[in-house]
């Protein structure tokens, strides 16, 4: 590794056991039970399968070098391994194989406000959060005024942060993070928080940092920001580094790859049953009037189905119902849409037509979803059922409404709701 290389990654790989919770012992009790079962198997002479354990390489054979002072954008779809890469490089989790050598002081920003405690004041949290991010006390003392000024919450700096609005909270947290002065910085998505104006301020700070000659590895879904800030790009697909080069080339390749995804947005019925005199012939997802495989979660979900009667069959579609069932990628049904909902739109009696349904956004948490279709009379007649015929991907919102990432860990359905304080807490009224 030459002296002007900031980061050198060789053959890095990270393997996850999937279904660790269910298949390996989650509790001591299960572990003991499993142990007993294994002994039972051994005694009865049925050697072999320990129970299915599946593993997944979230990162595999990744090698690249980053020269000092370069700002590198890491892009790729969901599950491509970007976040895993940053987690491994920032030592939150260990790699399964390979190594990375990082020269210089490392700073990682995978989430702002890590370690913030609601009961502590803004001032106390600045010190705590700074220490967690790796700043020394002397360093925080020196930068304290600057941090407070950047955050714009100076009037409330001695108030416990639980009284802060979410905007103030995030601004203070980012202000601390922004004053971290590492030689190498890993940033994951965190800039996609707060309102548009604050985001702009953050991006401004980022480019300031990059001009100061620091090495940055930047993960984001915001291609525009990546293109503006980065000079080089790394494209990941299913845990592998598939392209590395100038940021424009990499983004172009990413866009091309996205539109060429074999599975997304294409109707390919895996299994079908029913009488078959009328069928769902095609399904498409519309984004801005064009067929697509991906839709952002805050956009309306518009799906069209081509329903046709089989040649030579007299049209008997009248009285039929078309049902679309939206499922998670594990096949669990999430939501049913019928053309008879609220009076809806009746299927025409003959021939073929496109039926369109529009679900107002926000719809689902980013991730992959499937579609099943049913044509017939519910509980009475199954004319045509298609299972797993259509996959699509929901992307993170274009206009985020909450300052945190939306993940499946918090549920699947996105709802926007209005909040208000109905009754002020007594102590603050008394004061």
């Amino acid at each position: 590794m030459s002296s002007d290389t900031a980061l050198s990654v060789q053959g890095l790989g990270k393997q996850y056991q999937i279904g660790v919770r269910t298949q390996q012992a989650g509790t001591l009790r299960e572990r003991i039970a499993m142990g007993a079962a294994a002994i039972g198997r051994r005694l009865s002479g049925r050697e072999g399968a320990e129970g299915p354990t599946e593993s997944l390489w979230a990162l595999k054979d990744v090698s690249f070098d980053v020269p000092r002072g370069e700002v590198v954008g890491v892009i790729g779809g969901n599950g491509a391994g970007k976040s895993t890469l940053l987690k491994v490089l920032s030592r939150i989790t260990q790699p399964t194989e390979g190594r990375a050598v990082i020269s210089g002081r490392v700073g990682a920003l995978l989430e702002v406000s890590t370690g913030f405690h609601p009961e502590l004041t803004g001032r106390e949290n600045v010190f705590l959060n700074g220490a967690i991010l790796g700043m020394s006390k002397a360093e925080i003392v020196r930068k304290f005024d600057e941090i407070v000024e950047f955050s714009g919450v100076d009037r409330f700096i001695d108030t416990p942060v639980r009284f802060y609005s979410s905007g103030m909270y995030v601004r203070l947290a980012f202000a601390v993070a922004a004053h971290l002065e590492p030689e190498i910085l890993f940033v994951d998505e965190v800039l996609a928080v707060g309102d548009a104006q604050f985001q702009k301020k953050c991006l401004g700070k980022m480019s300031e940092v990059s001009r100061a000659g620091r090495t940055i590895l930047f993960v984001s879904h915001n291609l525009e920001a990546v293109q503006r800030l980065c000079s080089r790009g790394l494209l990941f697909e299913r845990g592998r580094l598939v392209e590395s080069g100038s940021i424009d080339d990499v983004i172009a390749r990413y866009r091309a790859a996205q539109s060429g995804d074999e599975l997304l947005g294409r109707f390919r019925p895996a299994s079908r049953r029913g009488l078959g005199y009328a069928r769902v012939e095609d399904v498409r997802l519309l984004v801005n009037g064009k067929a697509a495989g991906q839709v952002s979660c805050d956009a309306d979900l518009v799906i069209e189905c081509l329903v046709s009667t089989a040649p030579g069959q007299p049209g008997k579609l009248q009285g039929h119902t078309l049902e679309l069932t939206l499922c998670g990628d594990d096949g669990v049904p999430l939501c049913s849409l019928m053309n008879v909902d609220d009076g809806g739109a009746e299927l025409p009696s003959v021939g073929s037509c496109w039926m369109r349904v529009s679900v107002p956004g926000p719809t689902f948490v980013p991730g992959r979803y499937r579609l099943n279709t049913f044509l017939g009379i519910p509980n009475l007649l199954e004319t045509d059922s298609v299972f797993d015929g259509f996959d699509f991907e929901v992307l993170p919102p274009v206009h985020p409404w909450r300052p945190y990432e939306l993940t499946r860990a918090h549920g699947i359905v996105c709802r926007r709701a209005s909040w208000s304080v109905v009754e002020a807490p007594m102590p603050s009224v008394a004061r």
Partner: protein
Amino acid sequence: MNAAEAHASAPTTVVEAGRRPFVTLAREFWAYRELLYFLVWRDAKVRYKQTVLGAAWAVLQPFMTMVVFTIVFGRLAGVPSDGQPYALFSFAALVPWTYFAQGLGNAAASLVGNRMITRVYFPRLLVPAASILTPLIDLAIALAMMFVIQMGWYRSLPPVTVVVLPVFIVLAAVTAFAAGLWFAALNVKFRDVRYVLPFALQFWMFATPIAYPASLVPERWRPLYGLNPMVTVVEGFRWCLLGTPAPVLMAWVSCASVAVALWLGLAYFRRVEGTFADVL
């Protein structure tokens, strides 16, 4: 880069699979000592910030237990107390025991539900270490209470050996840390460990001379008895505060057993720490 930054900087970081040598761990622990201080400071601040009873809790728990023990074991059962007033005798043991139980309980729960672990890197050892250090504040308060009872109520002074007391506090802390490493790491993997802990503590308490004097244990069993380091801690506290005989032989056995436990605890912790973020 100025001096303040230079001390925290790691010129070259190597990320790879496998355990890291103890030396690296120790060096890193030292480099992050300020964070350890902040973690302890945060826990202490949060604990004492809101609760009026904050400081009182530290005293109330061992005090009430002392009252119960004095009535049940001291009066009703007539358990001997090495010639000391039973209340003082049991309180001198309950002070370190309460600290130990609290520290171990905190340490066991420290990794689970700690969002920091999945978001940022720092030596994972800091987490159980901080949870052992924070209850030292409660220990100090309880000790002050001890002196108040001793001098105010019983009108007696602790012997000169009281200056050696910190040695036994350190032994209690190291014991809690060694056991805490095991419980904390196991708790990440097996979530029912937290149900095991109260049982373990209960048994452990009766295996420690809190309600009774170690002198009740037959002479030839004492070395074996000393394998439980808390025996030495408790008898040491009594030696320092009340002037009962010093637990010399048991102290050596305890030091050896705690050293082995600590080494094993660190080794296990080091083996699994790389996967905490994957499981949490």
